[in-house]
């Protein structure tokens, strides 16, 4: 359980990091919190010969509100998310999700940027970002570009991020005041990836759903944004019949693989149960 040898780089800025990444091509890997990459390196399933540590890049740790948008620097840790008063008020689902990720020690190191960028279908933040319709800012040798979370994930560990790009920040349109939200995660134990998990964000107005979004974690090669599930709720009072439609849509969208967490049919079923519970909890939280 010893990683292969590598050269260590500790750039002071994103641009410097991008230059290093460009220089070393396939042999370079960016490390943020390291709790996905370093275990893979210890198993020698990842053997980068150049490791580019973002730990000294100072300007990637902010959480700030810019007009109606919340911007979160990629090096913000899960622990920072949990501790953020700004998020507790403006986007509390992030705290709820972060608390289900790994364990306290890992949350001190694990970053939101790493969680959304590495394309591991087990990660929890991607589905939530899809639910919130977040965008990711990528910086590469040609400058910055923005990709929405809903368009970012292509396959397991494959994303819209090019090898020479670094995800630097996440922009989230602040959900409406009084919105309802929930992240329901079924897992075997603390620290485990989800058997299935569902994120729901919705807004109610006069007893009618104004908008809603539903996304799933770890029941496919990528996080799954289930547009049909969200739209089936909009314009309705979100009663049991409507919820059943959203659940059916989510189950239809889920494409889980069998693993130690259970066979396919169980995990797809579980995705439905998580969606059902997340909608109900979000509804209970929604004001208006």
């Amino acid at each position, binding site marked *: 359980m010893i990683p292969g040898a590598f050269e260590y780089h500790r750039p002071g800025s994103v641009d410097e990091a991008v230059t290093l990444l460009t220089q070393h091509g396939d042999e370079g890997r960016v490390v943020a919190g390291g709790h996905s990459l370093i275990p893979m390196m210890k198993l*020698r399933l990842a053997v980068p010969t150049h490791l580019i540590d973002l730990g000294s890049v100072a300007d990637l740790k902010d959480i700030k509100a810019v007009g109606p948008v919340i911007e979160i620097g990629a090096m913000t840790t899960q622990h920072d998310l949990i501790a953020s008063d700004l998020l507790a008020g403006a986007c509390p689902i992030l705290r709820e999700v972060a608390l289900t990720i790994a364990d306290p020690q890992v949350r001190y190191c694990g970053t939101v940027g790493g969680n959304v960028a590495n394309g591991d279908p087990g990660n929890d933040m991607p589905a939530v970002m899809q639910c919130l319709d977040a965008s990711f800012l990528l910086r590469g040798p040609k400058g910055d570009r923005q990709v929405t979370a809903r368009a970012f994930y292509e396959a397991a560990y494959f994303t819209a991020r090019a090898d020479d790009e670094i995800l630097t920040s996440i922009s989230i349109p602040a959900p409406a005041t009084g919105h309802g939200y929930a992240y329901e995660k079924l897992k075997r134990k603390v620290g485990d990836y989800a058997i299935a998990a569902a994120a729901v964000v919705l807004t109610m107005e006069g007893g009618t759903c104004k908008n809603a979004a539903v996304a799933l974690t770890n029941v496919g090669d990528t996080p799954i944004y289930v547009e049909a599930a969200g739209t089936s709720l909009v314009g309705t009072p979100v009663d049991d019949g409507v919820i059943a439609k959203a659940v059916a849509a989510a189950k239809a969208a889920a494409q889980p693989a069998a693993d130690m967490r*259970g066979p396919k049919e169980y995990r797809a079923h*579980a995705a439905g149960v998580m969606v059902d519970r997340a909608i109900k909890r979000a509804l209970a939280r929604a004001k208006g």
Partner: protein
Amino acid sequence: MSDTTEMTLEQREATIGGIGCSRRRKEDIRFIQGKGNYVDDVKLPGQVFGDFVRSPHAHARIKSIDTEKSKALPGVLAVLTADDLKPLNLHWMPTLAGDSQAVLADEKVHFQNQEVAFVIGEDRYAVSDGVQAVEVDYEDLPALVDPKRALAKDAPVLREDVAAKDNVGQGPRKHPNHIFTWDIGDKGETDQAFSGAAVTVKEEIFYHRVHPCPLEPCGCVASMDKIKGELTLYGTFQAPHVIRTVVSLISGLPEHKIRVIAPDIGGGFGNKVGAYAGYVCATVATIVLGRPVKWVESRIDNLSTTSFARDYHMTGELAADKDGRITGLRVNVLADHGAFNSHAQPSKWPAGFFNIVTGSYDIPAAYVSVDGVYTNKAPGGVAYRCSFRVTEASYLIERMIDVLAQKVGVDKAEIRLRNFVKPEQFPYKSCLDWEYDSGDYHTALNKVLDAVGYKALREEQAEKRKRGELMGIGFATFTEIVGAGPSRNCDILGIGMFDSCEIRIHPTGSAVARLGTKSQGQGHETTYAQIIATELGLPSDDITVEEGDTDTAPYGLGTYGSRSTPVAGAAAAQAARKIRAKAQKIAAHMLEVAEGDLEWEIDRFKVKGLPEKTATMKQIAFAAYQSVPEGLEPGLEAVNYYDPPNFTYPFGAYLCVVDVDRLTGEVKVRRFYALDDCGTRINPMIIEGQVHGGLAEAFGIAMGQELTFDENGNIQGASLMDYFLPTAVETPVWETDHTVTPSPHHPIGAKGVGESPNVGGVSAISNAVVDAFAHLGVTHMPMPHTPWRVWKQCEALGIGE
């Protein structure tokens, strides 16, 4: 001579800190400051490191091994393969079960991650690179994963090395993949019980493959002093003396030239009983290189290679009268032993003490047969926090009695009360040949039923069932058999399973005691001192307990199967009694009276009728080195080798309440009440801690731990990502209770407790899960009760949506 102290009897008793007090642990002071000394903390001058190249295949022929690139790497010192070990005849080693096991794969690999080559280098980093650089060419062979296929005519022959043998150490066999058949009981009488029975039940019960997974993995440091010809072997050894004998037998080094040291051990639970390839390779490497060699396995290595537990495919049958009184028990077991028969049992017991399977019940007739087979899986078969194969046996009978209760429609507590061995039947001879020393099962179970409000729980369950909710109540009223064991029926490599204690009292009245066992967290440094303190009247704080160094400790068989208290604890008491007998002679001399005129009181001898004339043990200790009576040797020490007259039979009554989420399959243990009877209680705090820990391990086993294999023999889930070690969040809160039924044959009446909670815990939890579905006609559900398995049950019943 009179004592000047003016303490009351109670104060003197308290000063001793002996049997029955919750003394804080002596060993803690180093552990809480990071000053424990575990194997990986050992750092000897010139020490190098070794690790294995392991097979990615479960069954394959090795066509070639190329070590050249590896040896050329900086920091790599040597690479050993089976061919290098052959001239020393160390490429295979004998197992405790009479089979042989490849140290490094010889021509074939038989399980995934089997040891193929051993790379030695300056440090673990260089070694890791060296391991990667060894090139092995394999020819893949079909893997045999399902033990039910092992004896088929067309099954691949796994062990070509023994294919022609009709016996591989444990009796005749009937197929090249067959290891042994072991049976016990009166088959005819049992068959008769079944043929005339009012009620019979039958169930297929699989106790899945698990692993003890102590937090510290296995490892060793071998150091050969070539000048003196002496080998020192530090290691994670639950049985250091046995390891010394094994090393001597297989290496040819004389036993007095071998010193085995088990330093602090980070949990064992059976994992650290066996002798593993790493120990042999590190030993060979230090002999070859003349430098100390350390080997420490990774967690994945640990879970996938060093000794699994269980893997018993059992068929249980009960015959009973219409009221559920059991008249017969029949059990057939197919035991998956993996690639080599290297399970750790006393030699004559290929299925351990599985014949404790009649449990706490007075069953007139029983018959048990067990067949062991080879498969392409890691070898082993250790007792994971239990006595030998006792959890398997206990799980079988505790499940079957529930199946019977459901069939005859009797409450699950009531059926136990009807079948229990009665207090007046002890010592009780079971129909499968054990003599239970003592017990009072009715009192124990009734105490639990009262404590939890059993009637109200059943009422709540009935209400919930009406609402479609799933709630289960499970029992385990188990009997353990521990303290192996009497040398008339227990040995390892021909050595009787006694244990030992040597006590030396120093002139100033403090003492050192050395024992043949080895704590892995059980707190021996604390509890043995309490036994000796009570026997000798010296404060336990003044008694140092040492274990694990074969150069200083007397020979003993080690710590596993809850044998430390029943066997070595008895040795401690007996050695202390020898000392007290001599002390009495010295006291008589000091007080100028006859020995018979003295009586013992807490910490001193008193002259009968003259209470002011006393000699304290402390005073006697000094006198032992100053003025002993004529004809008596000076000094005050003794050694005792204790060969127990019988096993001890701790028991317990456990109750578990679960709630099941029928939509997700999640099971929540709402309540767990554990009553243990381990006879005399030496340190209640430590007992309670042992019970908590054993229950947590039981929870892990029942709810999630499992090692499975795909059809190619690839092991699944052998890291802590998948292998279910519950955290503080999942682990339930435990309620503990006790009764005290001393062992009549043990010097202080103690029975041992460390493993009871695992034996009873698994059954209680599993029974509770099944009970949640009992009203729907379910009689058995396979462990572990992971959410998906439980949901599959719901789905099958049409209640999963």
